[in-house]
């Protein structure tokens, strides 16, 4: 018996973007990090691009697929690493959705942040989400908070970088009719 799926154009788009994000994430996790906890987070460029170009529903699908599938491939599914990854992506996406919603009124639309603003918010909330989960569930030690400002500083810098990359991607691949 043959299984028949009817897939929409949107499904193909989700699959393509998720595949891209997963590949980037896995290549990135092969490189050792100079500082534990600091990672370029280039896979989040894809999430941000998806969010800004195709909207939050597709971004949520891509983000969840990225977290689940890459953890299965790396063998960290349901481990603390997986939980950290999940909490970070969900919080950063939640913040993105919230900020976009705040700038929805017509008199605020022109003040809508650009990709760089969104990227900074995303990376800072990503690390905060991970940090809080790590602190609450795994290492409830007050001294851990000494790491938070350092991690946040790196998050801002790397956020700006990923914002610039996302902007370039949007310029190149995001045609206006998707918006």
């Amino acid at each position: 018996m043959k299984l028949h799926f009817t897939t929409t154009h949107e499904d193909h788009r989700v699959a393509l973007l998720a595949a891209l994000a997963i590949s980037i994430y896995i290549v990135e996790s092969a490189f050792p990090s100079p500082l534990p906890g600091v990672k370029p987070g280039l896979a989040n460029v894809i999430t941000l691009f998806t969010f800004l170009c195709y909207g939050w529903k597709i971004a949520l699908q891509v983000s969840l697929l990225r977290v689940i599938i890459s953890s299965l491939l790396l063998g960290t599914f349901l481990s603390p690493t997986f939980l950290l990854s999940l909490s970070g992506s969900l919080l950063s996406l939640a913040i993105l959705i919230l900020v976009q919603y705040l700038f929805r009124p017509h008199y605020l639309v022109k003040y809508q942040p650009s990709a760089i603003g969104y990227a900074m918010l995303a990376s800072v909330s990503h690390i905060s989400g991970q940090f809080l989960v790590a602190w609450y569930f795994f290492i409830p030690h007050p001294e851990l908070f000494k790491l938070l400002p350092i991690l946040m500083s790196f998050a801002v810098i790397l956020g700006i970088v990923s914002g610039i990359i996302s902007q370039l991607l949007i310029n190149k691949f995001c045609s206006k009719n998707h918006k």
Partner: protein
Amino acid sequence: MFTIGHVLFKVTDFFILLLIGSLIFWLYVVFWSTNTQYGEAETLLVQFSDQSATEYPLHTDRIINIDGSLGSSIIEIKQGKARFIHSSCRNQFCVSHGWLSIVGDSAACLPNRISIHLKGSLIPYDAIAGSQ
């Protein structure tokens, strides 16, 4: 609103950067200023393996000699600070760690299974290691 190359910057981005920047500055101030929020370091906890820790007051200078799995470790308490001065292990990480003086500071000799930890007067806490 302006562009550099093909990258768009908006006023809101600078507000966001300012907001996050001040948040980070505040975090540095709160968590990196003098660490008095947990009180003064008062006792030294010395632990061997999974046995319960022995407490030593920090205000009396003394030399503690404790036997670990490999051999003896010597810990010194002096003027409210503590350090390993000798350990029967190869790498001597615990000795080169130097003085512990702030609440929450700890040093450990894993091969010898001995760890020391400074406890404060205000909040007695413990670290719980995650699985894996």
